[in-house]
């Protein structure tokens, strides 16, 4: 029947029946009024017939749903404590899963949007003796395969990301100071190969890739929007990168490089002139290009590999001996399929781990509901005996759980948004990578909460309705009694308490460790005053400064800075205190054998001017500090810090010993003084690395042959102020820009520097705290469930005991005995786990702070108190048992 019969139609039929019946009875000899009464009597309850008709024709599910939801809301608000606990616990679990899903979703979105024609997309990876060795190829190799391989429709090359200094932009709202930017070198077809087009303007021509004509550049879409306010007039304008003027000819497609920090795309041939540190372009041993290709129609990966093998064997003959084993591996699915597979594996692992948390949350909730079902068995019994079908009661109970789960789900989605944002800050991706609460995430959250509600609600609902009516109304405690008799501590249900408790303890311990670490740096801190110490640095090597100009600039500026009011002293150094030095190179002491391998002793190096230690405010421990007379051409001298002196000469006088870099073939340098240890705050566990200090004028000599990021003559400025550091900072910037207005100037106090270094540490400790709190909530719910269940099971027993004269403390001890054991177990396991972990960590990390007793005790105490509170809530119910009431129920 596809149309619905109306209620009036049914009523009319009943009326017709009554008239027909009455007619018949009249014909049998009754009076009309008697006949009508008899007909109605024979029909029975007209209302019930109408009700049954109503039920048969309407979509009763909806009716029931509305009523069930209303009833469930009433039940849940009545037991608010339970509802809040359950919702919070579940929402944390759902929130965590949804946050992870949000991130994975964002990554997948960006990945899939970037490359068209994914099926024919392959990566060309470098291989050695047929085994995949690395991802990148050299530029000559790329040229060779691009020009000779016929299997490919297009071959695209892209470099790593390089840092640049963008010169001040002329005019308008875009600001006038130089800034740090990043960019990649690309082949001319970097957009068209993957089926993309420039958003505006054009891409490079093939000639421009080879650097014919004026140098050109494309902007990344996100960078264009952010930095140039999406102004189309940028086309044809000039930007200065590393002191080279480039013409902007276009903006890349919005999908290209979303989530990447590159702001610029440059032709490959520009590399040597823009980055003067190395000519990667013509160096066959420099592997710096990620090469992707797109197969011709009807060409398989295998065929392409065969062609490449032939080509590479031809290429090998032209190569130097040490590259003779090289080949190229064609990998389906883009340049880095391994990374993608790893990403998927990682995502799966994370999702699995997160679902375990959710599973624990659900099981604990199921336990709570089971306990509630015991308490509600009279209510359910009454409903069943009044004629509700079992399915109807199960529906009702499930509705309650669904309401809980959906509430928790929406709360969890809000929580996940916050969590995903903080994770994003921690991961620090580029522009264009953002997390949204899009329909996929919302769908995921909803499905997850419904599934959760169903899974933790179904079993208790079935258990609660599986009983005979007589038994239920008799209120005998036998329902589920057989399960409560188990006295074993190692049951799965108890595991649900012990495991999260232990995990929570470990996580909170980790969070505590981080907090202590931050505290230590702030409270005890470095051995000098950081608030009035200012750091100023430039990237002169990127801005076209050669050695003579750099030295001139630095000397000139140093004199000017010394004259600024409020500046008490100024020093130059290649690396700041509390940061890493010039590089981690092997150190050689005079007389020892030359070992240049990785296992030989390494040290950090810092090139400093005279007055460095005076400016920091840390006194030289032993010997003398550098003076102005330690310069180029004077006797070669160095200083070492206490850690280095202790390591190399534990019981000897370090002064007078001679050292040099193991890799450089320079002369030995004599140690003239021992410097104090300055803590390195960049690493979480405060290691002080052995450090060698070299005088400014001799740095080039000392580091000869070593490859450093910065040229050894390029220094940072360290300024000690007496007055307000903010005012001095402004003056410093002004002074530097007065020398050269196109310079990128960084100025910050050492305190600010510490703050930025501490950021990830703080975030980490916050994340660990959140996870630890989550585990704690799980554990609490589990404890609450077990207690509530036990108490509701033993109500009668408790009643009898009270009637026989048991006192409150005895009753409390009776019901809490078991949970106390569980809590003790959980904390003990957690402590053991934390100890083992810290042992492992301290063997891996040289100067791991280790567990301190204060953190241990406070975390264990916190956990204990919370757990006992969770068990006390239901235990109080046991105290309120009224013996008269319990025994009367019998």
């Amino acid at each position, binding site marked *: *029947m596809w149309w619905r019969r109306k209620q009036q139609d049914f009523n009319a039929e009943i009326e017709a*029946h009554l008239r*027909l019946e009455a*007619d018949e009875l009249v014909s049998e000899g009754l009076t009309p009024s008697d006949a009508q009464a008899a007909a109605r009597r*024979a029909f*029975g309850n007209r209302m019930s017939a109408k009700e049954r008709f109503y039920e*048969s024709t309407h979509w009763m599910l909806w009716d029931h749903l509305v009523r069930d939801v209303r009833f469930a809301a009433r039940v849940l608000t009545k037991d608010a404590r339970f509802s809040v606990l359950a919702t919070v616990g579940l929402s944390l679990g759902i929130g965590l899963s949804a946050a992870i899903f949000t991130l994975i979703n964002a990554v997948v979105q960006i990945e899939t949007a970037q490359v068209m024609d994914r099926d024919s997309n392959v990566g060309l990876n470098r291989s050695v003796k047929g085994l995949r060795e690395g991802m990148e190829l050299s530029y000559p190799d790329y040229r060779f395969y691009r020009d000779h391989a016929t299997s490919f429709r297009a071959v695209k090359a892209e470099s790593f990301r390089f840092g640049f200094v963008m010169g001040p932009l002329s005019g308008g709202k875009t600001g006038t100071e130089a800034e740090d930017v990043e960019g990649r070198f690309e082949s001319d077809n970097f957009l068209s190969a993957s089926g993309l087009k420039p958003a505006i303007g054009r891409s490079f021509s093939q000639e421009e890739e080879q650097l014919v004509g004026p140098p050109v550049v494309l902007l990344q879409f996100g960078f264009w929007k952010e930095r140039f306010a999406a102004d189309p007039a940028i086309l044809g304008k000039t930007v200065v990168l590393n002191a080279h003027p480039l013409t902007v000819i276009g903006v890349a497609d919005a999908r290209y490089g979303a989530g990447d920090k590159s702001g610029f795309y440059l032709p490959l041939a520009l590399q040597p002139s823009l980055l003067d540190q190395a000519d990667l372009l013509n160096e066959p041993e420099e592997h710096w290009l990620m090469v992707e290709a797109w197969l011709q129609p009807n060409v398989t990966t295998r065929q392409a590999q065969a062609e490449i093998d032939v080509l590479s064997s031809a290429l090998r003959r032209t190569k130097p001996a040490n590259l003779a084993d090289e080949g190229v591996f064609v990998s389906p699915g883009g340049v880095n399929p391994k990374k993608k597979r790893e990403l998927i594996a990682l995502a799966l692992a994370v999702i699995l781990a997160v679902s375990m948390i959710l599973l624990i949350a659900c099981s604990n909730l199921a336990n709570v509901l089971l306990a509630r079902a015991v308490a509600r068995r009279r209510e359910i019994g009454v409903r069943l005996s009044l004629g509700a079908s079992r399915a109807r009661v199960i529906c009702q109970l499930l509705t309650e759980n669904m309401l809980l789960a959906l509430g928790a789900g929406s709360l969890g989605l809000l929580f996940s948004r916050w969590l995903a944002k903080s994770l994003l800050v921690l991961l620090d991706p580029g522009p264009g990578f953002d997390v949204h609460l899009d329909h996929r995430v919302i769908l995921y959250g909803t499905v997850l909460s419904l599934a959760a509600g169903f899974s933790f609600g179904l079993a208790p609902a079935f258990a609660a309705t599986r009983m005979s009516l007589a038994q239920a109304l008799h209120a005998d405690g036998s329902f589920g009694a057989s399960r409560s008799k188990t006295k074993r501590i190692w049951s799965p249900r108890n595991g649900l308490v012990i495991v999260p408790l232990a995990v929570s303890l470990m996580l909170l311990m980790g969070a505590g460790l981080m907090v202590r670490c931050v505290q230590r740096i702030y409270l005890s801190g470095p051995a000098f005053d950081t608030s009035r110490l200012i750091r100023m640095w430039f990237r002169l090597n990127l801005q076209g400064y050669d050695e003579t100009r750099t030295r001139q600039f630095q000397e000139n500026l140093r004199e000017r800075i010394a004259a600024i009011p409020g500046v008490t002293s100024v020093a130059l150094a290649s690396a700041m205190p509390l940061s890493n030095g010039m590089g981690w190179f092997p150190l050689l002491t005079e007389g020892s054998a030359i070992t240049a391998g990785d296992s030989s002793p390494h040290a950090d190096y810092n090139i400093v001017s005279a007055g460095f230690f005076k400016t920091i405010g840390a006194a030289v421990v032993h010997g003398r500090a550098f003076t102005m007379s330690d310069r180029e051409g004077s006797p070669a001298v160095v200083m070492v810090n206490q850690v280095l002196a202790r390591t190399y000469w534990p019981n000897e006088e370090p002064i007078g010993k001679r050292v040099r870099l193991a890799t450089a073939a320079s002369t030995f340098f004599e140690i003239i003084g021992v410097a104090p240890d300055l803590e390195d705050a960049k690493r979480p566990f405060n290691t002080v690395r052995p450090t060698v200090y070299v005088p400014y004028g001799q740095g080039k000599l000392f580091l000869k042959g070593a490859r450093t990021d910065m040229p050894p003559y390029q220094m940072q400025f360290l300024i000690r102020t007496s007055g307000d550091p903010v005012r001095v900072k402004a003056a410093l910037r002004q002074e530097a820009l007065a020398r050269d207005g196109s310079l990128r100037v960084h100025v910050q106090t050492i305190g600010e520097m510490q703050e930025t270094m501490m950021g990830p540490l703080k975030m980490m400790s916050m994340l660990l705290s959140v996870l630890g709190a989550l585990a704690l909530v799980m554990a609490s719910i589990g404890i609450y469930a077990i207690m509530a269940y036990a108490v509701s099971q033993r109500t009668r027993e408790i009643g009898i005991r009270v009637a026989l004269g048991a006192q409150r403390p005895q009753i409390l001890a009776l019901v809490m005995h078991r949970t106390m054991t569980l809590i003790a177990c959980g904390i003990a396991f957690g402590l053991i786990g934390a100890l083992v972990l810290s042992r492992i960590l301290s063997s891996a990390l040289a100067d791991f702070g280790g567990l301190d007793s204060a953190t241990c005790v406070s975390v264990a105490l916190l956990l204990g108190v919370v757990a006992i509170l969770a068990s006390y809530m239901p235990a109080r119910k046991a105290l309120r048992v009224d013996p008269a009431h319990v025994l009367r129920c019998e």
Partner: protein
Amino acid sequence: MPTQGPSDERIALLQGTLDLLILRTLIFGRQHGQGVARAIRQQSEEVLLVDHGTLYPALQRLEEKGWIEAEWGVSTNNRRARFYKLTRSGRKQLTHETSQWRRLAAAIGRVLGPEV
């Protein structure tokens, strides 16, 4: 299904048999609800009593299953009434249920044995 009336001779219908009886009654042609109830009572020689209140939801149920069809018409004594008639699938259902019932009744009869 509860019985109506005081008579001990009358038997309440077994669950599930009402549908069968309704279908059987309609095999002689279209009939309205009251007629169906009367027919069952008369053909069972006043032993089976159909609760009028349950009859109409049952008719409704059969109609939704597509075994019977209904339309408003006029009765012999000029009353408006809703007339039901068997459909093709209703006929099939009747044959099926009848044979089922006969087998059940015969089996029970064999178990109970001859009358004592």
